């Protein structure tokens, strides 16, 4: 895959223009995650109301792929119930592991499937998602 396939307009748009970036002091669920292989860190700020995610934002540092992936995830999870969100996250994990998954549940996030061929970058893609999985397990 070429550089332009990985760093597509879609990824670069989310990297630069995410509306979900920032610290949310009103959130009632905060979860930190890090990618030990490169030191990247992310903090998720989730507002939960009646078992529903009403807002999700993130802060931290990482490469364009990890930041774009966090932004896409936030878009996707906002408005979902806890149950729906868990299902979506599990589905995303399946996609990255190369298992059968339901594309309809993932929307734009299925565009990350192509990065599965790059084991080094899968860690970047999955940082936000793994962190969300941990947050929502609680």
């Amino acid at each position, binding site marked *: 895959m070429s*550089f332009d396939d990985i*760093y597509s307009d879609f990824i670069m748009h989310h990297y630069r223009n995410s509306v979900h970036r920032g610290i949310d002091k009103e959130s009632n669920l905060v979860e930190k995650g890090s990618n030990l*292989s*490169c*030191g*990247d860190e992310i903090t998720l700020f989730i507002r939960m109301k009646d078992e529903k995610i009403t807002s999700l934002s993130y802060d931290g540092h990482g490469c*364009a792929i990890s930041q774009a992936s966090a932004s896409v995830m936030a878009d996707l999870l906002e408005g979902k119930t806890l149950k729906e969100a868990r299902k979506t996250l599990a589905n995303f994990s399946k996609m990255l592991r190369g298992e059968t998954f339901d594309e309809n549940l993932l929307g734009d996030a299925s565009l990350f499937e192509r990065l599965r061929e790059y084991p080094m970058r899968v860690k*970047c893609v999955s940082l936000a998602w793994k962190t969300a999985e941990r947050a929502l397990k609680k």
Partner: protein
Amino acid sequence: MFSPEELNGYFEGLKRDFPIFSHDPSLVYLDSAATTQKPSSVLAAIRDFYERNNSNVHRGVYPLAEAATELYESSRRRLSGFVGCRPCELVFTKGSTEGLNVLASSLSICGDYDTFIVPVFEHHSNFVPWQYHARKNGLRFIPLPISQNSLDMSLVKETLQRMNGRFVFSLAGLVNSTGYRPPFEEIGSLVHLAGGIMVLDGAQLIPHEKFSFSESNVDFLVFSGHKMLSETGIGCLVGREKLLGELNPFVFGGQMIDLVGKEETIFSEGVAKLEGGTQNISGAVSMLAAVEYLENAGMERISTHVSNLTSRAREKIRAIGGYIIHSPESSRAVITFTHSRVHSHDIAEFLGRKMNIALRSGHHCSQLQMKELGIISACRASFYLYNTFEDVDRLANSLEEAGRWFDEFR
């Protein structure tokens, strides 16, 4: 004495000895601190060994076994000459990491030492084994603070003055994450003055600089074959004969045994005690060929050329806006930098996929050094004899382009 341009021309010629560059002529390989490319002569030596001399060593009495043993032992002799030690002081290992693990494990249980000192800029392989075995066996572990990317010599002296003589100081000859070359000669003297012993991690140093173990203040030295043109899975542990003899075996098995009884076993003496099991024989053969290649090319010439490349890279990267250099001014063979707004993985992907430049990004197995520099990860370009001025210029131009490309999305 050659001018930098003449030397560059000389090494441009040698680049043809490395088949990877004929298969991929546009490749700019700048990750030699991780592993080096291999010349045809090394590849031929490995093939030749398997085609003509393959047998186990130190076992059979038939001629083929003798030939294999002779090759293995001649590699030991040649390598001893290369690093200035005696053959009875050189043990084959899997590489520097294994050598350091043998030392940390053995020195932590022998009862002669109560403290391990290691600067925090060390590669994890020269930090974690000492930390682990010290903790496990109740020794004191001192992670020596650093000043940005260098040692603060007054702190080194102060630390050593407090020692009681029962300590081990382990230090890289050249730091992999920044190219800093600590004054290990001076530190070795101070360590000895304070009654301790000195371990030198030569993984990065030995490929780049003529070193004489017997003339140094170093008690143990480790280095790796694959960082100096040979195969992976082979390296050396060098030690003063007496100290080496006192080390506990690390791997128990064939070759390291004199006599096995039902209750007790008597181990071999000397280097054999530390070479349990069938060793990486083709690896040893590849190191022999590699050392021949390096000596023919000229270690001093390699040293000077690599320094010229590093200085050129430093100047060129400095001239581009947006990049911050984290290596010290005097860094050798390695230059580490970040872009002020773009992540190191993004820069490395741009260079790798768009420009065919192999450049490392990440924490370089040195998280504490990154922390000290106040960064999470960095890009690292590392040079070796097959790199040329053209490579450095392509690096600089590509870095400028990468910075521009990512900035356009702002």
